């Protein structure tokens, strides 16, 4: 993983933040990307699950979406609501061209977005959010033929 991460990280993919056909804004490739290459790391603030629970309630109370919270493992959540990088703008798709993977580098866990298949220039980067099932459903806007209808 280390070799793969370092090798690909230094070849940071050219990405662009632009209007998305799926929802508001999205992230688009500015260079062709081969399958199984690292696209971008999902970075943010590392917090405990109970802190994430409290923040989720605060975010909802102030109308901020809570879809920037990404569980990395049993006791850590990455919160990219207030700080992070472009990866927080990647939209969900039920038929994505990327996937998220947790890798461990020097005992630090990281969330890395890899390409699932070749991606062309100006193609939107998507991955399956894998939100846990909830009662309050969020409609999915990906428009893919096999769309599941809901993010959660």
């Amino acid at each position, binding site marked *: 993983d280390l070799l793969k991460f370092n090798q690909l990280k230094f070849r940071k993919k050219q990405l662009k933040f632009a209007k998305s056909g799926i929802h508001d804004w999205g992230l688009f490739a500015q260079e062709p990307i081969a399958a199984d290459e690292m696209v971008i790391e999902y970075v943010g603030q590392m917090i*405990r699950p*109970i*802190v994430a629970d409290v923040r989720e309630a605060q975010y909802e109370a102030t109308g901020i979406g809570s879809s920037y919270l990404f569980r990395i493992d049993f*006791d850590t959540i990455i919160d990219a609501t207030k700080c992070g990088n472009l990866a927080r703008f990647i939209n969900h798709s039920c038929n994505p061209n990327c996937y998220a993977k947790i890798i461990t580098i020097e005992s630090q866990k990281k969330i890395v977005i890899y390409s699932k298949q070749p991606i062309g220039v100006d193609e939107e980067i998507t991955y399956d959010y894998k939100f846990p099932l909830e009662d309050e459903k969020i409609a999915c806007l990906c428009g893919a033929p096999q769309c599941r209808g809901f993010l959660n």
Partner: protein
Amino acid sequence: GVLLALHDRAPQLRVAEDRLAATGDRGYCMLRATHGVQRGAWYWEASVEELPEGAAARLGWGRRYANLQAPLGYDKFGYSWRSRKGTRFHESRGKHYSAGYGEGDTLGFLIVLPAAA
């Protein structure tokens, strides 16, 4: 004797050999004592031997369901007394109770439960 429980604590807390002290560095969390009470009036006492600069404690009574990943008094299952400013907490609401306490202080916690089960 009453000790700090090994099996009833936030996993990130480390309990000392003598099970009378606990240390942790990943957020404010909690551990419970080995003994609980169910009815009648009970009182426990603690002397604060060490409370380094910047550290704080919230001591008191907690029920079995109190969330171990938060300080005592976070939810409705716990009642705590905070060393900073002497605030008492229940359901994360702090009310003034006394001056702050620290090293050298001895604290007492009385609980009065119904005599029947």
